[in-house]
C-alpha cells in the first residue's frame, strides 16, 4: 500500500496563473537584505561586544601563561567565533556563491510524497540534521589530539569548521537540494564523468568500511574487560527490541512515549550494571576480552543489518537521537556551570615531535586528520546529500541548517576537548598509551608515563588505581580509543555538579553508554547504507541485485560489507602495536579524503555555474584538505621512520623475521611480529587505495573546472525551476518582513499551504 498521491487534477492547488490568490512566495531580497544587514546602533554594539568577548577569550587561551585557564574561555572563544562566521562568512557565501532563490520550490515541495520528501520546520530539521551528522566522531578525535596540548586542537576545530567543514556541509546540502536531493555519488557521476563518478563511489564504499571498523574498534576498546559497560551496553539490544515490538504491535506511532520509556530503562541498566559487575557471576559472565567482544559486534552488525528495521535499527535510532540531543545540552550546561580549570599546557612537548604515545606523526598533518569530525568531516556529505535536502522548505534555509548544523558539531568537539584536558595529564597518557608501552599494569603505566619527561607530570600506581576504583572499573590503564578518557573527563566534571565523587562511576558509565549507543547506531546504519550502495553498484552488472526482496542478495551483500569492516576490526583488536594508535590515522585520512571528493564535486558545480570569482571559497578548504591528506598518506606510505610509515614498519618486521628474531620492538613473539607484518600491509594498501582514488576524483574536479573556465563546461544539472507556492522564514529568528509574510500564509487553510508535490509537474 502506498501513501503517495499524485492527483494533479483533483488537487485544490491554484493553477500556475492563479498564484495571485496566494501571498508572495518570498520576501523581496532587497527588503530582507536591508533588515538583516542594516547597521543599527544596537547591532553595532552587539557585534562589537561579541567580537571583543571572543577576542579576549582567544587571548586567554592562546597567550595567557598563568597556572591554569578556565574552561569557560573555550566556550566564549568558540561561540563568539561561530556567531561571527555565521553572520559574516556564511552570509558572504550565500550572497556570492550559492545565491538561493526563495521563488524556486525545493524538492521537498515539488516532490512532496508524505515520506522522505517532506517540508520540515527549519528548527526541527536543524535538530534532525544535527542528530544525523553528529555522533561519537567529534567526541573521540579531540581527545586523542589533546596529546599535543589544547591549543592546536582548539584552533583547528574552530578555524577548520568556519573555513572548511561548515562550508562543505552547506555547499553539498545546497547543490544536492538544487538537484532533487541526489546523493554525492550521483552528483559525482554527473559532474565529473564516468571515471570520476565510479572512483567516487568506490572511494565512498571503501571509506565507509574503514570508518565503521574504527568506530567499532573504539567501542570494543571501551568495553573490553569492563563487565559494567558490557552489561549496560548489551542491555540496549533487548531494550531496543522491546521498543520495536511496542511500536509495531502495542502502540504504533507513540515514538516519544517509547523513547522516554527506553531512556528510563537505559538509566536503570546503567545503575544495574554496577550491581551486576559487583556479583561473582555477573563479573564472570560479562568480563569479555576484546577479541570476543569484537566478534560480538561483528555478529550484531550483521544481524542488525538484515533484520527488518522496525525491530532493532529504528528503535535504537530513536534512543540514540533522544540521548544525543539530551547529553549535548547536559554537557554544555555542565561546562558552563562547573567551569573546570585547565592545567595542561597549551602546546605540549609532543607538538614538536612525531613519536607521541597516543598517535604518532608530527603535528602537520596528523593533528588535522586526527580531528576530522568537528572540523571537517567528509562523511557529512553523505547526509547533506540525499537525506536532509529532501526536507528543506525554502532555499534560504540551507545556510542555517548546513552551515549552522556543522557549527554545532564543532561545538561538541570543543566540549570533548575541554573534558579531555580537564583531567590530570598523567592519567591521560596512562589511559591512551598502547598496552605494549604500559604492560597493562598500573606500575608499568606509571613508570612509562613518568619516563616521558613531561613537565609537571608525576603519576603513581595508587593514583591510577584510585581513579579506576572511583569510576567503577578494574583498570584505566591503556583504555585507548578516546571514549574512556572522555568518560573520565565527563565524570570528573559532572560529579562536581551532581552527586559528588560517589556518582563518578555512574557518570563514567553514562558517558560510555551514550558513546557506545552512537557508535552502534552508526555501525548498523552504516552497514545497511553500504549494503544498499553495493547492491546498487552490483545491480549495474547483475540486475538481480536491484531486487530489494531478493533475500540471498541482501544477505550476501551484507556479509561482504560486514566481512570488510570486521576484518579490519579484528586486525585492530589483535594489533600488537595497540590498534587505535596505528589505525586511527587511517580513519581520519579516509574521512578527510571523502571531504576532498565532496569539495571537488562542489568546485566543478560552482565552476559550471560560472561563479569563477568566488571559487576560492571552495578551493581554500580543498587545497588545505588535499595538502593534509596527501602529505599524511605520503608519510604513512613512504616515511622511512617505522613509527610513522606503515611500509617502513612492514619492512622492519619482515627483516626481523627473516633474520630469525623472536621478538622485535613491542612485539614479544613471532606470532605478534607476523601480525604486525600483516596489519601494516593492510594499512599500507588501504592508504595507497584511498589516496589514489581521491587524487583521481580531485583531478577530475579540477579538469571539469578548467573546462568550465574555458567555456566548455558541462552546464548545470540542476532540476528545472518550479515556482514555489509555499513560504517559510530562513533563519533561526525570523525577520519582521518574514514574520509578516508567514502570518499571511498561516491565515490560509491548511490544504492550500501544504505542498503535495502533485500539481507541480
Amino acid at each position, binding site marked *: 500500500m502506498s501513501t503517495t498521491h499524485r492527483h494533479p487534477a483533483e488537487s485544490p492547488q491554484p493553477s500556475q496563473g492563479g498564484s495571485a490568490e496566494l501571498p508572495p512566495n518570498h520576501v523581496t531580497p532587497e527588503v530582507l537584505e536591508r533588515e538583516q544587514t542594516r547597521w543599527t546602533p544596537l547591532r553595532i554594539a552587539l557585534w562589537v561586544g561579541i567580537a571583543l568577548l571572543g577576542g579576549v577569550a582567544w587571548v586567554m587561551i592562546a597567550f595567557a601563561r598563568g597556572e591554569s585557564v578556565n574552561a569557560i574561555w573555550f566556550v566564549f572563544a568558540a561561540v563568539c567565533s561561530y556567531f561571527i562566521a555565521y553572520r559574516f562568512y556564511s552570509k558572504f557565501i550565500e550572497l556570492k556563491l550559492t545565491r538561493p532563490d526563495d521563488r524556486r520550490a525545493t524538492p521537498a515541495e515539488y516532490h512532496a510524497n508524505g515520506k522522505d520528501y517532506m517540508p520540515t520546520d527549519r528548527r526541527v530539521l536543524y535538530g534532525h540534521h544535527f542528530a544525523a551528522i553528529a555522533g561519537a566522531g567529534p567526541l573521540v578525535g579531540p581527545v586523542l589530539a589533546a596529546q599535543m596540548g589544547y591549543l592546536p586542537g582548539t584552533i583547528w576545530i574552530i578555524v577548520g569548521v568556519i573555513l572548511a567543514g561548515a562550508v562543505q556541509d552547506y555547499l553539498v546540502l545546497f547543490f544536492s537540494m538544487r538537484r532533487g536531493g541526489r546523493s554525492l555519488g550521483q552528483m559525482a557521476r554527473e559532474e565529473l564523468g564516468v571515471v570520476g563518478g565510479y572512483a567516487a563511489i568506490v572511494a565512498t564504499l571503501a571509506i565507509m568500511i574503514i570508518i565503521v571498523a574504527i568506530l567499532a574498534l573504539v567501542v570494543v576498546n571501551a568495553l573490553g574487560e569492563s563487565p559494567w559497560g558490557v552489561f549496560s551496553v548489551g542491555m540496549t539490544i533487548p531494550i531496543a527490541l522491546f521498543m520495536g515490538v511496542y511500536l509495531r504491535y502495542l502502540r504504533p506511532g507513540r515514538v516519544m512515549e517509547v523513547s522516554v520509556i527506553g531512556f528510563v530503562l537505559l538509566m536503570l541498566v546503567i545503575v544495574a550494571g554496577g550491581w551486576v559487575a559487583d556479583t561473582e557471576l555477573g563479573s564472570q559472565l560479562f568480563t569479555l576480552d576484546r577479541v570476543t567482544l569484537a566478534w560480538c559486534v561483528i555478529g550484531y552488525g550483521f544481524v542488525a543489518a538484515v533484520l527488518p528495521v522496525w525491530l532493532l535499527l529504528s528503535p535504537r535510532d530513536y534512543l540514540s537521537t533522544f540521548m544525543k540531543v539530551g547529553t549535548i545540552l547536559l554537557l554544555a550546561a555542565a561546562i558552563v556551570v562547573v567551569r573546570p580549570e585547565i592545567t595542561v599546557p597549551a602546546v605540549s612537548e609532543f607538538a614538536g615531535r612525531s613519536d607521541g604515545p597516543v598517535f604518532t606523526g608530527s603535528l602537520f598533518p596528523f593533528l588535522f586528520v586526527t580531528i576530522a569530525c568537528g572540523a571537517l568531516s567528509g562523511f557529512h556529505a553523505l547526509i547533506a546529500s540525499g537525506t536532509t535536502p529532501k526536507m528543506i522548505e525554502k532555499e534560504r534555509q540551507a545556510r542555517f541548517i548546513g552551515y549552522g548544523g556543522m557549527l554545532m558539531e564543532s561545538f561538541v568537539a570543543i566540549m570533548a576537548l575541554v573534558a579531555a584536558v580537564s583531567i590530570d595529564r598523567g592519567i591521560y597518557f596512562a589511559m591512551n598509551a598502547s598496552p605494549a608501552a604500559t604492560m597493562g599494569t598500573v606500575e608499568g603505566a606509571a613508570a612509562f608515563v613518568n619516563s616521558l619527561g613531561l613537565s609537571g607530570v608525576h603519576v603513581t600506581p595508587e593514583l591510577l588505581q584510585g581513579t579506576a576504583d572511583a569510576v567503577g572499573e578494574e583498570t584505566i590503564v591503556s583504555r585507548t580509543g578516546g571514549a574512556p578518557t572522555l568518560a573520565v573527563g565527563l565524570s570528573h566534571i559532572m560529579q562536581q555538579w551532581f552527586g559528588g565523587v560517589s556518582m563518578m562511576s555512574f557518570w563514567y558509565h553514562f558517558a560510555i553508554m551514550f558513546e557506545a549507543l552512537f557508535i552502534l547506531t552508526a555501525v548498523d546504519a*552504516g552497514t545497511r547504507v553500504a549494503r544498499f550502495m553495493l547492491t546498487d553498484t552490483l545491480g549495474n552488472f547483475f540486475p538481480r541485485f536491484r531486487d530489494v526482496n531478493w533475500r540471498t542478495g541482501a544477505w550476501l551483500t551484507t556479509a561482504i560489507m560486514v566481512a570488510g569492516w570486521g576484518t579490519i576490526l579484528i586486525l585492530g583488536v589483535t594489533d600488537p602495536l595497540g590498534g587505535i594508535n596505528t589505525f586511527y590515522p587511517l580513519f581520519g585520512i579516509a574521512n578527510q579524503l571523502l571531504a576532498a571528493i565532496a569539495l571537488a564535486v562542489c568546485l566543478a558545480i560552482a565552476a559550471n555555474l560560472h561563479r569563477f570569482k568566488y571559487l576560492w571559497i571552495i578551493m581554500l578548504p580543498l587545497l588545505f584538505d588535499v595538502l593534509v591528506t596527501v602529505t599524511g598518506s605520503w608519510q604513512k606510505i613512504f616515511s622511512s621512520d617505522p613509527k610513522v610509515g606503515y611500509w617502513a614498519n612492514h619492512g622492519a618486521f619482515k627483516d626481523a623475521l627473516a633474520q630469525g628474531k623472536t621478538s622485535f620492538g613491542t612485539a614479544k613473539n613471532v606470532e605478534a611480529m607476523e601480525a604486525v607484518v600483516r596489519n601494516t600491509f593492510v594499512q599500507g594498501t588501504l592508504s595507497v587505495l584511498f589516496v589514489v582514488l581521491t587524487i583521481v576524483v580531485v583531478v577530475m574536479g579540477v579538469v571539469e573546472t578548467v573546462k568550465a573556465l574555458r567555456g566548455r563546461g558541462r552546464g548545470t544539472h540542476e532540476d528545472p525551476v518550479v515556482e514555489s507556492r509555499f513560504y517559510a522564514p530562513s533563519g533561526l529568528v525570523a525577520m519582521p518582513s518574514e514574520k509578516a509574510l508567514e502570518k499571511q500564509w498561516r491565515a490560509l487553510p491548511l490544504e492550500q499551504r501544504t505542498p503535495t508535490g502533485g500539481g507541480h509537474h
Partner: protein
Amino acid sequence: MTGAVEQAGRGRSGFLDWWRGAVRFGNGVLGADRYERYLQYHRATGCESEPLTEREFWRDWQDWQDAHPEGRCC
C-alpha cells in the same frame, strides 16, 4: 513554536506554551509527528480515498524504511 517563545514571559501559561513548543520540537526531531503530517499531506492532496489508519501508516512507513536506509554519521 515562535509563538511559544514570544509569550514565554507570561507566567504559567507562558511556561506551558514553552513546554508545548519543546515537546513539539522533540517530536519533530524524533519523527514522532509523521502520522499527523501525513494526514495533513493527505488532506492537501484532495485525494478522495480514506487516509491510512495510524497503525497502517506506521507499518507502511516502517516497511518503506526497510528499503530506504538513512545514514548515521560518526
